[in-house]
Structure formats: structure tokens, C-alpha cells
């Protein structure tokens, strides 16, 4: 029983981080119709900034302060997003998709090099937070308490985002802009402002994913690309542009990956891509996506 619970928690842990990344990707696509390939390295940026602040810059500071500063990586990713959207990406919204993919792929590469330039090729860690909360006993095994914090943050982020999109004034404006940008503008909505806000929130989510995972695994070069690929599997399954889809996709990928590691580790990733391929064939817009 204990081992099943541990697998379940591992699935939720993985799904929580994936939801933060894929949810941000989906939010940005839903509003601006741009597939932001740079999203993966905004997740990595969140991890690097939090790891550097907690693991290097403020080493020895009280634990409470370090916990409060953990989201600093998310703030950094959000700030980068708030600068990138109006200065660079906005010019490409009306261009064909291949231009958008090229520019965001270029950004992905530039961010990767920027991370290498600033923090070098070695992993950065913020494991002090992971160690500080110890482990709990589940059956005969020990399970890291910090993982439960990550799961809780993922759940709270999903609930907060749902409430934000469906229960606030800004959420209504955001959904209106995503459905018909031209009409929203004609009704008085400052669409450019909505774009910056949506992009910043999306980047914040990616950065938060990186920030909360970095105490349990180091920030390393290439982590953004790996995360991006899995985030794409999530949004293909759930439906690009749908937050519900991002949540469902993250849970499916989380559970399948965990089952794969336990039951068929050699083909764990292949099974994920197979599921994505089946969804693409059977329902090209994803489980929660709406056909164009």
C-alpha cells in the first residue's frame, strides 16, 4: 500500500511541475496564438535564479527567509517575459507561424547561452530547503516532505489560475481577448496591455515551476529543453490553449511516466509520445482543445 501511495505522490509531483510549465505555455498560446518555444528556458531561468539566490548568494540566511525568496526565480522569469513580449514577440503575431517558431526557438538558444554565460556550465543547487524539512514515513519507506510542498504549490497554482481566469474581471477580459482580439479592442479593451499581462503570467508560471523544483533537483543546462518537450506532450494531449487541458495532460503524463518508470522503464518516454500520437490522430485539437 505504501509503495502505491509513493508512486501516486511521485506522479502528482511530476504533474505539478509539468502543469506550471504547460499551463503557462497554454495560457500564452490561448491569448496570443503564439507557440513560445523559449518557454522551456524561462522555466530553467526560474530554477537558476532561485538556486543562485538560495544556494549561493544568501547561504546561511534563516530558512524562513530562504523559503520566502524561493519564488524569486518566478519573478525573474516574469520580468524577462514582460520585456520580451512588447519589444520582440509582438512584431511577429501577424507573421506566419514559421517566423514565430524561428524567433522563439532563437530565444530558447539565446537564453540557454545566457544561463551558461552567467552561471557557467556547472549545476546549481538549493538543496538546503529540501534537506531542512526532512522526510516522512510512508509504510516502510521514507518520502521527502519537500515533495509534498511542491504538490501543494502545484495544486494551489491550478486553483488560483482557474479562479483568476474564470472568476475575475481580468479573467473575463483575458478570455474575451483570446476569443476575438479585434472585437475586444473595439469594445475598449487595451489588447496590448492584456498581451503583456498574459505573457508575464505565463512566464511567471514557468519560472515558478523551475523555482519550486530546484531544491530537490539541481539547475542544469539543458533542463529547459527537456521540460519544453514534455510540456508539448502535455499540451498535445490536453489541447493547446486550454488550461483544463494542461491540467489533464499534466496528470496523464505524470501518471503514465511514473507507471512507466515502475513497470517498463526502457520505453517510458516512448509510451508518452505514443499517447500523444494517438491523441493527435483521434482528436487533433487535444482532449480539451477546440478545433480551429
Amino acid at each position, binding site marked *: 500500500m505504501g509503495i502505491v501511495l509513493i508512486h501516486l505522490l511521485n506522479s502528482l509531483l511530476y504533474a505539478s511541475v509539468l502543469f506550471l510549465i504547460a499551463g503557462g505555455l497554454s495560457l500564452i498560446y490561448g491569448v496570443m496564438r503564439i507557440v513560445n518555444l523559449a518557454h522551456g528556458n524561462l522555466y530553467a531561468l526560474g530554477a537558476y535564479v532561485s538556486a543562485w539566490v538560495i544556494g549561493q548568494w544568501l547561504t546561511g540566511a534563516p530558512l524562513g527567509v530562504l523559503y520566502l525568496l524561493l519564488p524569486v526565480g518566478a519573478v525573474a522569469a516574469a520580468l524577462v517575459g514582460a520585456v520580451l513580449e512588447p519589444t520582440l514577440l509582438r512584431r511577429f503575431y501577424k507573421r506566419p507561424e514559421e517566423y514565430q517558431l524561428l524567433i522563439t526557438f532563437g530565444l530558447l538558444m539565446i537564453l540557454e547561452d545566457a544561463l551558461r554565460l552567467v552561471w557557467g556550465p556547472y549545476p546549481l543547487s538549493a538543496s538546503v530547503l529540501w534537506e531542512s524539512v526532512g522526510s516522512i514515513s510512508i509504510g516502510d519507506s521514507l518520502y521527502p516532505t519537500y515533495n509534498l510542498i511542491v504538490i501543494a504549490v502545484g495544486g494551489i497554482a491550478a486553483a488560483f489560475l482557474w479562479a483568476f481566469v474564470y472568476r475575475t*474581471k481580468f479573467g*473575463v*477580459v483575458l*478570455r*474575451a481577448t483570446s*476569443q*476575438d482580439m*479585434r*472585437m*475586444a*479592442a*473595439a*469594445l*475598449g*479593451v*487595451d*489588447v496590448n496591455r492584456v498581451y503583456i499581462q498574459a505573457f508575464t503570467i505565463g512566464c511567471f508560471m514557468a519560472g515558478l515551476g523551475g523555482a519550486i523544483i530546484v531544491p530537490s533537483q539541481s539547475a542544469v543546462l539543458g533542463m529547459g529543453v527537456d521540460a519544453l518537450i514534455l510540456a508539448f506532450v502535455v499540451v498535445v494531449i490536453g489541447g493547446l490553449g486550454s488550461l483544463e487541458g494542461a491540467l489533464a495532460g499534466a496528470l496523464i503524463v505524470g501518471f503514465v511516466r511514473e507507471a512507466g518508470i515502475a513497470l517498463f522503464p526502457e520505453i517510458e518516454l516512448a509510451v508518452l509520445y505514443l499517447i500523444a500520437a494517438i491523441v493527435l490522430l483521434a482528436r487533433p485539437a487535444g482532449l480539451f482543445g477546440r478545433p480551429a
Partner: protein
Amino acid sequence: MLELDGVNTFRGPAQILRGVSLRVGDGEAVCLVGRNGAGKTTTIDSIMGLLPVRSGRVVFRGHDITRLPPHRRARHGIGYAPEDAGIFPDLTVAENFEITRWLAGGERAGAAAAGIDERIAAVFPEVSSFLTRRGLHLSGGQKKMVAIARAMALSPAILLLDEPFEGLAPVVVSRFIDAVKRIKAMGISVLIAESNLVNAMRVADRLYAIDRGEIIFHGDPREAFANAEVMKTLRG
């Protein structure tokens, strides 16, 4: 209230409007009549800022708004109901209203926020019965009603209605014409793009006829009926 002065507008490389000049006075209902493709929607889009004006001027309440973005024009008091109604499909009717109501309550508080619901109810009382329905599930006539009522929620000084009677049954057209008259009675100016001259005559104080992007007639609607050349052009 609203004035277009020598407006030239392009869609891509094609010039659609050629020196269009027109005027809508305070509390006036003006129709812009023309066949499909004559330039009616392009004129409305140019006023709303949805298409850039290549040359010429759009003046609203004495201010040159030619280079203003659409949202600034809306907030200055230009209401807009497009030909396809432009209802947000996944939003409820109430949420469709809330967007303009918030903007009216924010930037144009005071006169704007007060009495909006009463004015909407006076024009289309039936809208209150489907407030919780999503835009996706409205009929064509309901969508057009919501589009006009939503534009009213911004408390505009002028309403731009693009083909508001198109696709409606004759009895419903009469209902909409009555609604436009009520809007006008509230002191709101109305500019209607319309392809049916008979409908235009029922509602317009003055009429402009447009063909191939040029204004070919301007005056009393009855004069347009009496002008054989205009009638021939409008009927094709």
C-alpha cells in the same frame, strides 16, 4: 459629432475607400447604403480604427481620432456592433456586457455607469432572459441584440451598426428598427451600414450612398428614392 474628411483606406494592396467624406450630427440617425463590397464595412472599420486610414481625417467631437487605436476610440464614446455581431462565444451574455460595463464604470465613470442597465432594458428587454446563456448558444437575432445592447453598455455618444438587420425575419427587422429609434430618442447618434434602401428609409434622418468606395449621393432618403441613377447603382 462624427466627421470623415477625404478618407482613403486600403485592404492589403487594394484601395477600398476613395476620399470618403460624411458627417453624423448630434442625435442623428444616418444610413450608409450600398451594395455588397461597396465599402460600407470598410468605412465603419475605418471609423472604429480596425483598419488604418491611409489619408484623410476622422474627427469625433472635435478631436482628430485618425491615429487613435480602437480601444481609445471606444472609450471616447464610439459604440460598435459588427455585421457578425462579434459575440464572444465562450462568454455568457452577462460576461459580454460586463466587459463594456467595467470600462464604462472605470474610465468614463459618472454619466456612463449610471442607468446603463435601464437603457439596455428599454431597448431590448428580452436580453435579460438569456443573460446566463453562452454566446455560442444564441440565435442570429439574439446575437445582434446582444451586440447592440453590449455597445450601449459603454454608454456611447454614437453607435456604429454594421448591417444590423441582415438575416433577420421582417417582423424582427421592425423590432430592431424600433430599437434604433429608441436609441436615437436617448440622444445617441447612430450610423448604420445597410444594403437595403427600404430599411434605411424607415430609420434614417439622412442617407449616404456608397459605390466602389466613393460617396455617390448624400441627402434626404426620399431624394435617393427619386434619383434614378442612384437607385440603379444601388440595385445593381
